[in-house]
């Protein structure tokens, strides 16, 4: 029951927000995070094509032995990724709330350029209040 990190990936696969919470996972350099986010973007597209029946969404959760990634894809193509421990039943609802905060604090901000890294104190502090 722990949250390790949050990523926001824009529709082109660029990492626009990344934040570690707690020290459950080792920190990587920002370059490494950018590469991982790009990889995840590609994998997400491929997984939807591998469906053995009917049409499929992209990967929704990806699990390792000790942590999992939960991915929320919005209608506009932005991806919210939450890194948590394997048993974290609230991951989906947390992501929905993050999306709400993103809409309020980032999309309604007239000084924010779409698809660019998020540098907003309001967003930061509200995320801290939610999962910090």
């Amino acid at each position, binding site marked *: 029951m722990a949250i390790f990190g949050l990523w926001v990936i824009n529709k082109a696969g660029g990492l626009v927000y990344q934040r570690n919470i707690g020290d459950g996972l*080792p920190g990587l350099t920002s370059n*490494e995070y950018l590469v991982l986010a790009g990889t995840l973007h590609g*994998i997400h597209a491929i997984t939807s094509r591998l469906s053995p029946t009917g049409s499929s969404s*992209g990967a929704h*959760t*990806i*699990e390792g032995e000790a*942590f999992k990634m939960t991915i929320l894809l919005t209608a506009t193509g932005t991806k919210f990724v939450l890194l948590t421990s394997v048993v974290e039943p609230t991951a989906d609802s947390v992501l929905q709330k993050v999306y709400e905060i993103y809409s309020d604090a980032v999309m309604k901000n007239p000084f924010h350029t779409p698809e660019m890294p998020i540098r907003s104190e309001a967003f930061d502090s509200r995320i801290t209040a939610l999962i910090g």
Partner: protein
Amino acid sequence: MTIYSLYIYDRHCTCVYYQDWHRTKAPRPATEGGILPAVSQQLYQVRGEDGTLSVMNSSPRNTLSSSSGVVIAVNDELPRTPLLQTMPQPPAPKPVHTGLSFDEEAKLVYGVVLSLRNMIKKLSGQDEQFTNYRTSTYKLHLYETLSGYKFIMLSDPFSDSLRFILRQIYAGPFLEYVVRNPLVNMDSKEYGIDNEYFRASVDRIVRGLSVF
């Protein structure tokens, strides 16, 4: 609760075995030279229906498999015909194809699994294994052996972890009918590992599961 398919890859990234059960969207047959011989009987059968591959029945070495006695594996380029002559089955309805051919699909599956495996290792900072991912219509499970063989199974999205089954397939049929079978050319990069006993044995394990 459904199990869709099983892929086995060797450490050279090549698909050496494939079997499926409840797939409603089959891959298109592999292109010539796209997959190794003796990977999957099903795929060759599909090609036979199209009338493009009739060599299967006229193979000069077919005498081996129809004779009495136990043949565990035949060193033949083509998949072996069943030991027991089965009754001719009514033609199945034409399967709906995905847009991909089998060799492309096999490469994509391997690519996804390898990338995720590296991503999980990098993020965790230690040797942590990637175990599964889930989409709206299926769940992919991975079990990797120390020798680099990767067992990959696709099931419905709500099943529990199936790694123990993959391990069971490795510890049972795989060791018994592939590793201990002197006629199977492992690690050759030229042949798959498909043989009658392995296929039947895997089939029995999977069909006996409560999640099948």
